[in-house]
């Protein structure tokens, strides 16, 4: 059968480094707040540390679990995911933590069901591409069914309404479909159709025109510095203050007031402020290495399911990292996507480390 080798060392190394930088920066950006809110400086660090340890255990398990067995779990994971997405609207279980995201409270831990959705959709699409590989170049039997599924899932997430996560999942699935051989003409047509609908909405429905102004505020945040431009400006002020070597670990000023929850979405701005260009570029390069190894694993995987699964998991991390970094650097609209492996967030960290574990497992069967 398939020959086993050691897991991909560079993928493991870049994961550890990002995780380490994340822990240090979560502590640096949260300690003052933590001290204020909980009387201890390491509240957030401790929680993130617990999830990092759990996540590393899950990663290890994932790397030992033969990846082709995941095909058996495509259906169960998909339905559990649907259930969770509905559960967030059940009073007492689901709740609003921020304006746009809905969470599930399990008592000891709160988590975003969309973390499970990401995995479910990658698993579903990878399996679909393998199962329908004969028809995948056709529209009706190949592309349309998967479009309906993704439409359903997106609709559920948009009800929260979490636009950022919806986009992340849609983009991941599209890239995966592209990798799986769907015709570029088809993908292009779908994108064009979607684009036309959005354009029409913006042109004829005032509410959407207003939304557009908000979304595009990142293009010129200084037009409304205390309103929609606030976070982008604060992020840029933090980054700009960093220069080459940064203001020094722990010395960020922006983390005090100006960036809300600096250990979350905007942790990269604090990294750039405290560690400067050197630290900021290092993080991007680590992600670049991680993505490169992920795609290499996909290319070298011995079967189609392995290739698609590896590509999908890598893409999930790559899309999130790209969106988060793009937002923080002021080149994309604010979406509320965290930086994988680095930002504070228990279940998200757990899931990302699980993805890495699965990738490590696939890497052991490289041809």
């Amino acid at each position, binding site marked *: 059968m398939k020959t086993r080798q050691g897991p991909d060392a560079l993928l493991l190394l870049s994961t550890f480094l990002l995780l380490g930088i994340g822990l240090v920066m979560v502590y640096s950006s949260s300690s003052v707040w933590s001290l204020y809110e909980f009387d201890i400086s390491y509240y957030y660090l401790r929680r993130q540390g617990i999830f990092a340890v759990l996540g590393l255990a899950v990663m290890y398990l994932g790397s030992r679990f033969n990846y082709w067995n995941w095909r058996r779990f495509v259906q169960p994971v998909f339905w559990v995911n649907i259930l969770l997405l509905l559960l967030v609207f059940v009073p007492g279980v689901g709740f609003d933590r921020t304006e746009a995201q809905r969470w599930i409270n399990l008592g000891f831990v709160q988590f975003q069901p969309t973390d499970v959705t990401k995995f479910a959709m990658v698993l579903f699409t990878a399996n679909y591409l393998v199962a329908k590989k004969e028809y995948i170049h056709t529209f009706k039997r190949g592309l349309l069914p998967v479009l309906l599924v993704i439409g359903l899932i997106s609709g559920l997430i948009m009800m929260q309404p979490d636009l950022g996560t919806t986009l992340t999942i849609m983009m991941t699935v599209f890239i995966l479909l592209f990798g799986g051989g769907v015709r570029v003409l088809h993908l292009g047509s779908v994108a064009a159709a979607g684009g036309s609908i959005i354009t029409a909405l913006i042109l004829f429905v005032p509410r959407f025109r207003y939304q557009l102004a908000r979304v595009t505020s990142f293009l010129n945040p200084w037009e409304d510095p205390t309103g929609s431009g606030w976070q982008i400006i604060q992020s840029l002020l933090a980054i*700009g203050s960093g220069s080459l070597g940064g203001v020094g670990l722990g010395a960020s000023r922006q983390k005090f*007031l100006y960036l809300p*929850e600096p250990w979350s*979405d905007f942790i990269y701005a604090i990294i*750039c402020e405290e560690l400067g260009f050197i630290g900021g*570029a290092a993080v991007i390069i680590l992600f*670049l290495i991680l993505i490169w190894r992920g795609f290499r694993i996909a290319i070298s995987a011995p079967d189609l399911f392995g290739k698609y699964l590896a*590509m999908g998991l890598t893409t999930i991390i790559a899309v999130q990292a790209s969106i988060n970094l793009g937002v923080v650097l002021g080149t994309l609209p604010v979406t509320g996507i965290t930086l994988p492996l680095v930002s504070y967030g228990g279940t998200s960290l757990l899931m990302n480390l699980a993805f890495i574990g699965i990738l490590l497992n696939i890497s052991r069967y490289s041809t």
Partner: protein
Amino acid sequence: METRVSYTLVRKRLLKSLAVFAFFMVYLIGRLAWVQFIQGDELRDKALAQWNRGLTVQPQRGSIYSRNGTLLAGSATAESIIAIPSEVKDVEGTAQALAPILEMKVEVLRERLERTQFEVFLKRKVDDDVAMAVKALKLRGIRTTIESKRFYPGGNLGSHALGFVGIDEGLEGIEFFYEKELMGQKGYIVYEADARGRELPDAVQAYLPPINGYDLVLTIDEVIQHIVEKELDRAMLDFAPEYAGVIAVDPKTGEILAMASRPDFYPEIYADYSESTWRNPLISHSFEPGSTFKLATISAALEEDIVTLHDGYYCRGFFTASGRNIKCWSSGHGSQTIKEVLWNSCNPGFMSMGTRLGKEKLFEYIRAFGYGGRTGVDLPGENPGILFNVKTMSDADLAVSSFGQGNAVTPIQQAMSAAAIANGGTLMRPMIVKEIRDENGDLVKKIPPKEVRKVITAETASELSIALADGVERGSGVYSMVEGYRMAGKTGTAEKIAPGGGYLSNLYILSYVGYGPIENPRIAMYVFVDGATKGPNWGGQVAGPIFKRIMTQVMQYWNIAPNDEILQPKLPEEIVAPNFVNLTRKQAMDKADQEGFSLRIEGEGDLIVGQVPPAGANIPFGTTIIVYTGPGGEREITVPLLEGLSLRETSELLSLFGLRLEAIGSGIAIIQEPLAGTQVESGDVIKVEFGEPSQE
């Protein structure tokens, strides 16, 4: 076959996808570099402006205490009125409502309320009733924040040492020098912001309390400071000088016990005073010291065994250096011991000592006493003074340096060098803060005294102290002698340098430096009165009595038992008035200083042309002798004695009298026509023949 083609396609598409991500990541690195390097400066400035805009909560500034524990500077909280413009819906109404309470123009308020800033100060550090009135209005977007306001219970007391505080930070004195310790750490008011950044913060979410600043305990003794301030006020009334100042230090530790000068200011309303008033002249004023500087010369000469106090010296009335005859203030002291040279303050005697020491040695000691460099006192704005450059100075420069001319020094340097002699020859670094404490009064840091260097041996120091004290008790020190205590002391009279160079003819810096009791010196003090416009014009009768009065009160305050044998010398009831005619102002003053007369100089010129009572008359001791100078417009002028003066000196002197010079030959003045003492008209020509000085 189907599968293999599919694998190739998948591989191609995977590589394309990877390329897109890689391209985007590289773009992000470029974007990062752009933001940090190209836009960096601009963003940093904006960030800084934002941080300083007042989202912070000011900590309470640390207090300043005297060594006795009395409060010299403290902080009370005051409220500031701030606005969050984005929350203010009704700008016009808000501005109208606030204007009368804050006593501000509606337009100004309107402009501030419309700023695109997160937070704007409307008025800072307002009185309690104003803050209450604003709060009672419950206006949307208007808040108050607590800041610290500085107050000084002693009023003007020690204002130059304490300095003052601007809106946010110490700007002068200790308040400036110890800004970091006094300031504390800012606290923060934190506002809630939506995670999408779409809604402006609406409510205060959290408050991180500030950490208050540290307290300082000074070396200043409040009682001595009060005594000094009181005596300075009296001096201002008596002599109406431009400046006056006193610095008193503990010679053993260098601790500054009192430091005050006039004109002073009230630190709470410092802005109402001119900026020149803020400067602390005791550390920033540098001038030619005059005779007080002779202590350095004689210390060096004794230490180097150039002379002993019992050696003899004959004063002919001048000393020749670089071919120039530099005059003594007297017409010649004749035969004296070195001790008498010190008592008489005989300039040729000191020039001789300085010349025998040589430039290098003399200036080695001058520098060792701390002149020509900052003393390192923990106050801002210290002036190092200026000394001659040993490499380029002439023999005449060396000669005048020996008796206190040509070099510029500060009051604190003179106080510290006298303190060094009092301290057995060891120079200490002056200090004004001895302890730093936290808000609970717990000691954070104790600042120990610091020895700078050993300048002279204890034997030399002790010998010199006794000689100085003997001098004070010999009669001419009657104005400065502290009855019951042996005090070392020396007067000084220095001419003021005019802004454009040269000396001002009628303004002097009168000084006195001393310490005691010499058996166990507890205090060293320097007193100066700069540019007295009324009263006597010489050091001994102006600065000396200030020294005496302060010392007498300090000895009582410290309960130091007086020695009944040390009494004011018996003074003769009548003495013979000496001659002042044809002396320069400076010479006349030095003469009056040494012989114990009170002198009043009338007129603008430099040369004394007449005196009342006349020379040789019997007068009661203490009578003020009034002397007149020329010229007075069309009045007749007495031709001065020019013999022995250089061409430049001759020309300067004659121009002072409004006379013109016709010079013949070069060298020093030998023959003049008309002769000295002749009455001439203003503008007349005096013929002077210059030549080689005759060999003596």
